[in-house]
């Protein structure tokens, strides 16, 4: 009764919030309930609630195969590299932009540096094609110097480098923005005081800028670690244009779930992998947030 009264009192604000609430229920919370599919032997005819219960069988099947360990290894491996590069390189770029004399040039360079952020992964796959294909730009240049073409595009051993390079290319500009904004916020007095003490520019960067950015770098790293079981599906599915022979180096958890889902033969394994990712990802984010809260409670997500 009391609850109904409260709703009546606040009905206008609740009305404002209602569309969002409904959308979140439909597209976020219902799928959370849909997690039970990983614990069932799902059959289309019977649907979500009538398919027979199979407990942890799907997970057993999944982890009995080599596939599970491969996809987890790949996902974690790439993410560790991405996290390391993703915190060092954008900071370096931000510092470089800041050092550049002439704000107009700096602005132009910065604008161009974020351009890759605005390309969709489908477009990116064509960028990859035009660079690395057999008749691609890199081979054209090699041929120009008399060297043979290299089959970058369909040989698995080149792709870890291609994927890492692509990821850095696409994210370095946009990710440096926040560090550059932070650097610009450092009061000039710090530099002046350091100069009076005889500090060189390198020393100024090392002892003023970096400590100022340290907190942000740590937070970013820990949040990224929280998402260590998730991969950028576009990067790993679209860039290789889904070439099957590359799966040993491109099939992360997300790509595996998608492929298994589409082939429909493996919906139980696919569901198990998907739910595994969600649940483990949830735990890692909680841990990550807990750590951040100990370091600097204001930066924690909650």
């Amino acid at each position: 009764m009391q609850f109904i009264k409260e709703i009546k009192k606040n009905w206008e604000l609740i009305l404002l919030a209602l569309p969002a609430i409904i959308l979140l229920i439909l597209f976020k919370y219902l799928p959370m309930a849909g997690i039970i599919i990983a614990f069932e032997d799902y059959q289309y005819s019977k649907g979500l609630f009538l398919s027979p219960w199979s407990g942890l069988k799907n997970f057993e099947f999944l982890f009995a195969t080599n596939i599970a360990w491969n996809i987890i290894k790949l996902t974690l491996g790439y993410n560790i590299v991405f996290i390391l590069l993703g915190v060092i390189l954008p900071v370096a770029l931000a510092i470089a932009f800041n050092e550049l004399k002439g704000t107009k040039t700096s602005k132009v360079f910065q604008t161009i540096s974020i351009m890759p952020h605005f390309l969709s992964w489908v477009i990116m796959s064509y960028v990859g094609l035009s660079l690395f294909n057999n008749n691609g730009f890199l081979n054209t240049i090699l041929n120009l110097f008399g060297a043979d073409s290299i089959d970058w595009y369909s040989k698995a051993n080149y792709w870890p480098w291609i994927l890492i390079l692509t990821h850095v290319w696409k994210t370095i500009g946009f990710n440096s923005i926040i560090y550059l904004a932070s650097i610009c916020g450092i009061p000039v007095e710090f530099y002046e005081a350091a100069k009076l003490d005889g500090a060189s520019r390198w020393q100024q960067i090392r002892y003023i800028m970096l400590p100022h950015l340290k907190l942000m770098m740590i937070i970013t790293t820990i949040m990224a670690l929280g998402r260590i079981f998730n991969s950028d599906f576009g990067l790993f599915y679209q860039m290789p244009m889904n070439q099957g022979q590359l799966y040993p180096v491109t099939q992360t958890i997300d790509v595996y779930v998608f492929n298994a889902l589409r082939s429909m033969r493996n919906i139980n394994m696919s569901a198990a992998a998907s739910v595994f990712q969600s649940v483990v990802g949830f735990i890692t984010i909680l841990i990550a947030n807990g750590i951040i809260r100990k370091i600097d409670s204001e930066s924690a997500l909650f």
Partner: protein
Amino acid sequence: MSKGNSIRNKNKINRIKFHDILLFVVLLGLTITFIIPVALIYVISLSSNESIRNLGYTLFPSEWSLDGYRYLMGTSEQLINSAFISVFITVAGTILSVIVMGMVAYVIYRKDFKYRVQLSFFIFFTMLFSGGMVPSYIINTRLLHLNDTILILFLPFLCRAWHVIILRTYYTQNIPDSLIEAAKIDGARELELYFKIVFPISLPGIATIALYSVVLLWNEWFTGLLYINNSKLLPLQVLLNSIQSDLDVLSQNPEFATSPDGIEMAMNLPADSARMALAVVIMTPVLFAYPFFQRYFIKGLTIGSVKG
């Protein structure tokens, strides 16, 4: 004394100049690596098939040609259809998401809202935990029957927790409580308050979220790939993707490739220049527009990093 100083100063100036030049050259080189791959796509789209056959992909084709674009014009029906879909979901999705998220962000900004904490958590929790790809797929197709509809292409994106938080932070920083109180004293009702007073003031924040929405929706390809079979509902990104997957089907299935169906498919597939031309059509609007709105994107990032 002064002579010594001035010589030292001259050396200092020279040293600084060298550093600056080096930095400039390095950043220039980096900038060029951002430009070249994109320029390459434009150039390939304007290369003749001859040139591509003989020289491969290059920034300096032997022969320029508009054949790629002519091919696109030939498939104009599908192209216009897909363009319409992309534009529709981008515009409708952006307008709707800005309204939906603007409203709910306002509700959780209001400190006097009784269920503020619960609602915030409700929204925020979706950032921590998600059902995942498979449960979402089953719900969207079996329960909500959104398979192969235009709704699935933008509805799931209308409420995004991260952007709601950015908006709430924006409201907190830019809309003083006193304004709300004063309006209430003047007798304004809640709905009136939001749409007539708060919304107009918060337009810069709304604009930022709108721009994020536009980029997100225009570049979205996953939902179309997963849920859409009807070619009339393919957005541009998915169209581009489907051309590639048709090529894959042909190259990976030699029996199919030599069958009558396969041969017909092969004949209808666009040449490299045409595919690149389609890529050009898709990426140019965003590429030309984003520099003008750069400060909004940056603002969104800096607001987002401040916990409101």
